[in-house]
């Protein structure tokens, strides 16, 4: 437990470091534009935290980020995203009714109203599920839009009537940080407290019901109670965050940090820690950027920061990331191109009875059906990898411009033999063991030759008893040939 907190704080400090470093970078880019002074002082003002309103907003965003990240982990793993969305929209009429009841923007009555409306929304969903065959996503959609519509009607009504102190009420739709009061902060703190206590006390039970509800029921874990507890906490989290991000975007904060954490978390504890850190990071980062940008609204910026982090991680993460896969595919493609060139070179030398080691680019162009430029580029690649050397044609008799001539290095020759061997062994394997017709095997071998591992090759050799020729009667270069380079390199 202790180590988790210290780890959290450590991560937090690292985050702050990165944040300040990035802000410095931002400033550096602004040099010369005449605005850098302004930006720098803004950033300084933010980090000094002397301004009470900045302090309040930053603290609020931080608390909200942690709460949403924690409870969001359960929202995402239990596929309750749409539920969170519905709940956040369903509280809006409650906010309006709370206002009408109190006659002013009194936080307490607004919260009560929101809570009751949220409860009514959940009841509607349960009733729809119980008495109709409508699927849950549809019933969530119905409740969401109906409640939201009621809320908008009521809010418009209030504005038309013209209450004395109605300012800031529409901030519940989009959020408005400037109206954030210290009461709101207390609300956020209480929500976080309840969420934390609930998770710590029921961690094991939540794990079991989330993974395997039937089993957890069988060992006497009260699934329904836990589910209800989560609903109440989601409602708490939504209501307390309304002032910051508003009813529409709060569900994004429930989903995005947790979804980001799901990209790499193997275990629930990691998941919770990462998700709450990402939520907190987005909260603070968003506050910082909106402060820096003067007129930018904090709520949407927080959500934007959160989703940017998500896409960045999706793109950059190792192994599964888009960038990594793209690079990997490129390296495989370039390897295949090199191997195909080597194979062509081998075939040309073979055709000449292993007498002449020089391979002209013209010959390669003919065999591969490639343009001069393409062949030149591939020859360049071979030379660059140390598999071949490049010369100009030594035949002055022709009137043509000098030709590029290729000679394989010992390393290149060995590689070429290996590829040809893979190809021909595979053809033989297909005809002899899998009983393919000899004219069916070439295309298959063209693909397989690049992916046959050393071990599979040995296995096929044993199966076919170290064959000498392929189904088309051509020589299969043997291992000893390859190692001694005795096919032709003896010259």
């Amino acid at each position: 437990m202790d180590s988790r907190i210290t780890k959290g704080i450590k991560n937090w400090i690292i985050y702050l470091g990165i944040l300040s470093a990035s802000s410095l970078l931002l400033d550096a880019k602004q040099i010369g534009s005449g605005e850098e002074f302004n930006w720098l002082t803004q950033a300084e003002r933010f980090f000094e935290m002397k301004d009470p309103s900045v302090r309040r907003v930053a603290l609020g965003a931080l608390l909200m980020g942690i709460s949403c990240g924690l409870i969001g982990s359960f929202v995402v793993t239990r596929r309750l995203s749409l539920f969170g969305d519905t709940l956040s929209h369903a509280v809006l009429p409650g906010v309006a009714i709370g206002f009408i009841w109190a006659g002013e923007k009194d936080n307490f009555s607004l919260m009560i109203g929101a809570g009751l409306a949220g409860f009514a929304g959940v009841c509607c969903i349960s009733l729809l599920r119980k008495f109709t065959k409508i699927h849950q996503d549809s019933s969530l959609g119905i409740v969401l839009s109906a409640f939201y519509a009621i809320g908008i009607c009521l809010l418009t009504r209030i504005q038309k009537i013209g209450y004395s102190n109605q300012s800031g009420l529409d901030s519940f739709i989009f959020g408005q940080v400037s109206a954030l009061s210290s009461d709101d902060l207390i609300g956020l703190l209480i929500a976080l407290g309840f969420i934390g206590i609930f998770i710590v006390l029921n961690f094991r039970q939540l794990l079991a019901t989330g993974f395997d509800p039937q089993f957890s029921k069988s060992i006497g874990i009260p699934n329904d109670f836990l589910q209800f507890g989560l609903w109440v906490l989601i409602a708490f989290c939504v209501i307390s965050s309304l002032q910051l991000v508003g009813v529409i975007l709060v569900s994004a904060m429930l989903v995005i940090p947790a979804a980001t954490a799901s990209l790499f978390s193997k275990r629930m504890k990691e998941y919770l820690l990462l998700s709450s850190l990402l939520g907190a990071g987005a909260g603070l980062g968003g506050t910082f950027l909106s402060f820096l940008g003067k007129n930018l609204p904090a709520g949407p910026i927080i959500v934007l920061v959160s989703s940017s982090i998500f896409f960045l991680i999706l793109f950059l993460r190792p192994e599964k990331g888009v960038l990594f896969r793209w690079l990997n595919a490129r390296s495989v493609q370039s390897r295949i191109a090199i191997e195909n060139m080597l194979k062509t070179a081998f075939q040309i030398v073979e055709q000449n009875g292993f007498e002449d080691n020089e391979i002209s680019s013209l010959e390669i162009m003919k065999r591969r059906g490639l343009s001069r430029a393409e062949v030149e580029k591939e020859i360049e690649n071979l030379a660059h990898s140390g598999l071949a050397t490049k010369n100009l044609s030594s035949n002055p008799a022709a009137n043509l411009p000098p030709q590029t001539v290729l000679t394989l290095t010992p390393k290149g020759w060995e590689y070429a033999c290996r590829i040809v061997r893979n190809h021909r062994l595979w053809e033989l394997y297909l005809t002899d063991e899998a009983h393919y017709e000899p004219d069916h095997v070439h295309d298959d071998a063209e693909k397989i030759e690049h992916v046959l591992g050393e071990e599979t090759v040995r296995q096929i050799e044993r199966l076919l008893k170290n064959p000498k020729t392929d189904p088309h009667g051509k020589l299969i270069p043997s291992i000893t040939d390859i190692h001694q380079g005795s096919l032709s390199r003896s010259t």
Partner: protein
Amino acid sequence: MKPQGLPIEVHDLTVSYQKKPVLYGVDLEIAEGSLVGILGPNGAGKSTLIKTIMNMIKPNGGYVKIFGDAPQKGIKRIGYIPQKESVDWDFPVTVSDVVLMGRYGHHGWLSRIGQEDRNKASECLEQVNMLAYADRPIGNLSGGQQQRVFLARALAQESEVYLMDEPFAGVDAVTEKTMISILREMQKSGKTLMVVHHDLASAKEYFDQLLLLNMRKVAYGSVPEVFTHELLQKTYGGKLAVLSEMATKVAKAS
């Protein structure tokens, strides 16, 4: 010491989903140390029977007794493997987390999982040959490996009675052999096991007793008694069975 009742006793059990009966007047008495296969077509009420015994579904009539007691009291003495489909395989848990869940029933609400439990979990993983995978996310495993982990979790429960719902579904032949030998060992150490199974041919070899179920208990007894053409026809035949019964009658009459 009062004599202990049968591990599982089911009396005139009727269960319905939305007024449609799934099980109807089922009686069953399972003796200690039995290895019972439950056979029946889809929708025959096999899973429902197991869930009702586990007290997860309330019956409309009749009762279940676990060691002579109400099922609520006996629940701690039963281990359970649910159907694969009811599990969220993408959930962020590792193999060892899952096996540790088998120990949850031994702890109160707030007591911590200790080193002893972890040792037990490793031991059970070893038994199903999955210790090397302890730190893998459960979603990364193949279907057969996942079922082995579930068997390890059941072992970690250290129950006296086990109810398993299709533990061999989607399992490769090697895993199936390993699992059945573990079930045999469990039986030898005095455990009582009821296993829902879908393959008739192997059911004959795997189990000592068979329960043929199709809404009603068609038959319960030792394999040679129950595994007869007539009884299987009755269980699986459905409407065709009635038809052929009538057809034979007509044939005899003419």
